[in-house]
């Protein structure tokens, strides 16, 4: 009991209790609350920024995907257009060829028709000339009364003469 009385002093217990309460309430108001609020604010800000970064990363990934898809689409369109252009070129070339072939055919037929006409003209002319010559020959024969050998000779001369004519 003496030991307790020596070591436990109620007055001191009370003052120590009061001292602790003072330091507790003081620190709670002026230290713990500001410190915890600073930590909380920092945690929230970091979380917020982290979420923002994650969202931005997701957005960048989405844009990258979209961009790649867009590029792929452009490539596809370019390929299709190129194919169309090639087809169109081939079609135009074929048309030109067909047209040229048609024109050639027309020209050929026309030329052929012209040649035939010219040939016919020449034949008619020749026939006329032959007829004319025949008349001249007949005239000469009648006029000069020549014998058969003489007729032949004269005929040959006439033919040679005709051959010399341009």
């Amino acid at each position, binding site marked *: 009991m003496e030991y307790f009385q020596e070591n436990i002093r109620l007055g*001191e*217990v009370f*003052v120590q209790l009061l001292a602790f309460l003072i*330091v507790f309430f003081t620190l*709670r108001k002026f230290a*713990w*609350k500001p*410190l915890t609020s600073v930590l909380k604010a920092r945690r929230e800000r970091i979380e917020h920024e982290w979420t923002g970064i994650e969202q931005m990363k997701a957005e960048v990934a989405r844009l990258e995907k979209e961009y790649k898809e867009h590029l792929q689409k452009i490539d596809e369109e370019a390929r299709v257009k190129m194919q169309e252009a090639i087809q169109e070129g081939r079609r135009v070339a074929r048309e030109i060829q067909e047209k040229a072939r048609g024109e050639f055919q027309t020209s050929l037929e026309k030329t052929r028709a012209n040649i035939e006409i010219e040939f016919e003209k020449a034949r008619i002319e020749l026939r006329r000339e032959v007829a004319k010559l025949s008349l001249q020959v007949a005239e000469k024969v009648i006029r000069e009364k020549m014998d058969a050998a003489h007729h032949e000779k004269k005929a040959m001369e006439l033919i040679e003469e005709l051959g010399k004519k341009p």
Partner: protein
Amino acid sequence: MDQTGHDIAQTAHATAQAVGEAHELPNFLTVLAKLFPENPVFDFLHRWENVVFSLLVIGFIGWRAIAAARTGRFIPKGAQNAWEAVTEGLTSFVTGILGPRGVVHVPFLGTLFIYILFDNWLGLVPFLKSPTSGWSTTIALAIVTIVYVHATGIREQGPLNYAKHMMGSPQGIVGIALAPLMLVINITVDYLAVPLSLSLRLFANISSEDRLLYKFAELNVMYKMLPFFFQLFANVLVIIFSLVQAFVFLLLSTVYISLIMPREDHDQDGKAHEKKAIAIHH
């Protein structure tokens, strides 16, 4: 250093001899009271030395903590960094046992831990004394803790549930019949045994540490050189044990709060916390 250490040790020894059965190194109030025995102020301060040193610790903690908290920089520096690390560590420790709602108890438990720690370490400074080497100091801390724990219990559970808890949550006729006995046992344990064990453990450990330091200082007066290395070793031990004792006080206080909180409030993984608390308690 040797000469100064020797002088201190001699003063300690002399003072110890003068005041009779000394248990610890003399502090400046003991020396002043010895030097001026007729002075009532020094006599008063000497008699209330534990309170004086407690106030010294309170002043120091308050000054440093408030100065650190006041800066409130987003990127902390110096003292703010250290105090934030302590706050973060304590919050993590307390919420690890009590769950997310335990964060409201961080200011009390944190103050308790830091106050006890600096009280314990104060005895290492020459001519100062650990206030926790006095039983009156540790009783005051234990009373505050128990009052806080039970106030938390009443607030969290409600008065009726708290009363049921104190009666051992009786179920059935046997439980109801045993309720008064359980009430007496719980009141005895919670209001008497727990503060007694809390206060006695801290007081006994810290006063033993002070006594150890005193004995090594005494050896230094008697023998040269060799005991000085032992004293260095003892100082390191005292630093570590002081930290351990402050931590034990914090841990037990947290566990008492955990045990008095309603079971469903131990958060989503309450079972894990409960098991952890019981494991720590044992």
